[in-house]
């Protein structure tokens, strides 16, 4: 068994210049190589200098004293605003919660396991829905009417879909961020990138699924 200079360099970068911390079966090989190669010794010394320099570069300033309080204040304010929403807002958020519960069926179908690909597809679907439905709290706009007409839906069904699509989008963005570590921006990029026309078929299927719409209506009451 031998060690090449390239392997030595890799170990040095990964484990540092203290050879005693390298994998035990590599230590003797490394010492032998170091003893026989002046070039490697020079490299080793320059890596030691770098390691010392990195170790000395350690002057992170203390946190400002009020950071903890600022974060707590924001958290408390978020909790309070969730509890004391205005009646109109509350109705919407209540509606959203109900919609979320209702779309559990969709999520169960869309997210059998929280894998990035599936989440991306689901996000795309949510984006497509939002795009088609042009979600708005005042749902009697022209687009909604048009959508209802084009798809032979009642306005009630359109409203349900609008709410569900917005809730679904929120839910999926949160899931993507929480479980797969996407940043919000990355999740939005995935949304944008995956809004391909072939997803129209999925949307059509969803809109044609009378059972699902009925179930949604029942769930939301």
């Amino acid at each position, binding site marked *: 068994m031998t060690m090449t200079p390239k392997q030595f*360099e*890799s170990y*040095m*970068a*990964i484990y540092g210049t203290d050879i005693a911390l390298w994998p035990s079966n590599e230590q003797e090989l490394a010492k032998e190589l170091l003893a026989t190669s002046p070039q490697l010794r020079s*490299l080793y010394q*320059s*890596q030691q*200098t*770098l390691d010392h*320099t*990195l170790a*000395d*570069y*350690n*002057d*992170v*300033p*203390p*946190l*400002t004293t009020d*950071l*903890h309080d*600022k*974060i*707590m204040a*924001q*958290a*408390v304010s*978020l*909790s309070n605003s969730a509890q004391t929403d205005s009646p109109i807002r509350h109705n919407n958020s209540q509606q959203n919660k109900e919609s979320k519960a209702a779309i559990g069926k969709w999520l169960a179908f869309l997210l059998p396991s*929280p894998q990035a690909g599936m989440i991306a597809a689901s996000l795309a679907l949510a984006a497509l829905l939002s795009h088609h439905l042009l979600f708005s709290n005042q749902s009697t706009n022209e687009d909604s009417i048009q959508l209802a007409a084009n798809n032979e839906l009642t306005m009630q069904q359109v409203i349900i879909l609008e709410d569900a699509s917005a809730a679904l989008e929120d839910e999926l963005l*949160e*899931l993507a*961020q*929480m*479980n797969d*570590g*996407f*940043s919000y*921006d*990355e999740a939005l990029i995935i949304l944008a990138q995956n809004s391909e026309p072939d997803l129209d078929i999925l949307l059509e299927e969803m809109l044609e699924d009378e059972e699902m719409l009925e179930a949604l209506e029942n769930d939301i009451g």
Partner: protein
Amino acid sequence: MVKLSAQDDQKLIQSIAQGDQAAFSQLIALYSKPLFALGYRMGYEQNQAEDLVQETLIKLWKHAEKWDETKGAAISTWLYRVMTNACLDDKRKKRMLALDNIAEPEDKQADAIQKLQQKELKQQMDQLLEKLPERQRAALILFHYEGFKQSEIADILETSVKSVESLLIRAKKQLRAALERKSHIL
């Protein structure tokens, strides 16, 4: 690096998910400093790094109820991942920073020469690290200063252990070459 046992992790996240402010306060006390250090070493000014810490911790507060314990992720891994992503995203969007403006901590006792040396070293390292690609820089900081293992860094950066090794090797090679060039010039 702060690391709780899986059991403590679970307990803490469950309490936070139930809106337990004391538990969240404990989380802030545990993680704000190391997360801040990561942001600061990624080249952010103090107030910017603190904003990113706040954003990261608030995300956990908002989403704690959706924590998926079956995925077996540690809170620390998740927080470092979100913080690292926040840094990388931000840096992708804009070229950061006047590192020169970072205030040195006041230390009236230190003698002038030592202060000058420290300042030079900091400037030198700031300049060197600034030239590293961001993922190399993140891997180096997580490994060298936060004490994460390569497998943990792979989790945080959402890549393989091999890629982390490669990031570290390239980062150190580049830094070594830059230091050598500097010493030749001086």
